[in-house]
């Protein structure tokens, strides 16, 4: 212990020890080589599970896997089939379609800023780590998405044959005797998903850089409606910088995910009954996560079941206050917006689109150049 302290004060080191100290320093620099999130100033990085630290190479491996159709049983789909970069990582469908053609009961979701989410998917309070989440699309049967159930060894054999993976897997997972494992696949996917961070919309430039003309006067009026507790009240559920409610970040408090019933249905039937599906509590019927509204103009159709086609339709739903049901959130209140106010609110929502995200090479298909 005393030696370590001694080594740290370089000036007093004896020569014999100095070399060792330099070596140690180099090793420490390597370990501390923090992943470059390229965050905007004053924004905290997301929290990362201790058993799956970030590295540039792991993200690269994850990106390869994310876009690799060898990850589906019949070779027709990858994660990117339902999470397309040009649509802010959604699929443009009301209901996602799996590799065998089976319809998913719910709509695909954006993966933007997913690293900050306290809960994953539309309505699962117990799922917050991205690595285990990836098992559901890969191996799930209800519904079948990538359709890999029972094909673990086939999948790993396919991956082993790829020269790029032969070099990447051992480098990213040097501790594993055999780095080709399903767990490592999900860890790399999770690292890639965590890296998808977007805070470069016109609204961010207006709000965080103070660029007054980054958004229009109409959008500024819309912003006031969005954040008004008396009018639209959207921020009460889609609050914070991610417009998704509470977020988790490195060094931050352990926030709980929030789920709300917006009165979209008079009765929510399983499997689309919200978190009741997991908690079994009837009072949780119809309670869903408020997804991020970033890039929302690109992610139609809307809601967990894709039942609303346009943002105008979404505003109608909120203005109506939703169906009169006991579970409905008290934040849902009917209100009237003038045509001008509706247009302003939509102008505001349009300012949340980050066009750089849609073509950022960090998150694009790495196999394309080779195909």
């Amino acid at each position, binding site marked *: 212990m005393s030696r370590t302290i001694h080594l740290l004060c370089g000036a007093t080191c004896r020569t014999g020890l100095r070399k060792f100290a330099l070596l140690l320093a180099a090793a420490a620099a390597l370990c501390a080589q923090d992943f470059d999130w390229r965050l905007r100033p*004053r*924004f*905290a990085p997301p929290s990362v599970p201790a058993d799956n630290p970030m590295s540039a190479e792991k993200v690269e491996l994850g990106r390869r896997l994310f876009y690799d159709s060898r990850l589906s049983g019949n070779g027709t789909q990858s994660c990117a089939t339902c999470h397309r970069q040009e649509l802010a990582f959604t699929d443009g469908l009301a209901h996602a379609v799996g590799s065998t053609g089976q319809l998913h009961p719910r709509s695909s979701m954006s993966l933007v800023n997913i690293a*900050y989410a306290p809960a994953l998917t539309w309505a699962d309070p117990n799922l917050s780590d991205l690595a285990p989440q990836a098992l559901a699309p890969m191996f799930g049967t209800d519904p079948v998405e990538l359709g890999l159930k029972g094909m673990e060894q086939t999948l790993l054999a396919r991956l082993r044959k790829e020269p790029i993976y032969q070099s990447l897997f051992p480098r990213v997972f040097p501790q594993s005797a055999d780095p080709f494992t399903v767990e490592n696949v999900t860890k790399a996917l999770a690292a890639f998903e965590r890296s998808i961070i977007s805070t470069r919309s016109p609204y961010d430039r*207006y*709000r*965080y850089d*103070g660029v*007054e003309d980054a958004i229009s006067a109409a959008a*500024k009026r819309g*912003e*006031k409606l*969005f*954040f*008004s*507790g*008396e*009018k639209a009240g959207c921020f009460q559920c889609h*609050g*914070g*910088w*991610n417009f998704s409610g*509470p*977020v988790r*970040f*490195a060094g*931050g408090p352990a926030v709980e995910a929030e789920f709300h019933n917006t009165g979209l249905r008079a009765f929510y039937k399983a499997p689309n009954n919200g978190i009741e599906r997991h908690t079994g509590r009837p009072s949780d019927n119809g309670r869903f996560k408020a997804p991020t509204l970033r890039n929302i103009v690109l992610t139609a159709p809307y809601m967990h079941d894709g039942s609303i086609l346009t943002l105008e339709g979404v505003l109608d739903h909120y203005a109506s206050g939703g169906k009169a049901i006991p579970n409905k959130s008290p934040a849902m209140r009917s209100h009237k917006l003038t045509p001008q106010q509706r247009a302003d609110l939509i102008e505001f929502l349009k300012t949340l689109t980050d066009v750089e995200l849609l073509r950022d090479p960090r998150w694009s298909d790495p196999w394309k150049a080779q195909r």
Partner: protein
Amino acid sequence: MKQPLRLNAEDLSKMPRASVDTRFDGVAVHYEGVWLTEVLKKAGVPSGVELRGKWLTGYLLMEAEDGYQVIFTLADLDPMFGGNPVLLADAANGKALSGAEGPFRLVAPRDRRGARSVRMLKKIEIVLLRK
């Protein structure tokens, strides 16, 4: 209160300045403005040992541009009682507050939830409840 006290950005700039650093949602913001207790002093509201009798039944009704309202009691804010520091902010990260944040807002760093950190603050009404 007989006379309403009107404060604009310039008046606030001349009062004793204070700041609060927040990290809501992991975004660091440096708010600048004036402690509410300074504003109350200017309005002639007693504080400390003078805060007694009917004043202990007093509260502040905060109203935003859109009609949103919340209250803080006088004793809650006073350093000799609750000592809850609440900032009347007019700037964030060196820039005047704008849009849905401004031109004035409250920042209540001790509240765990943000609902009393009223944005677009328009009016502070002092109400004494004692019958």
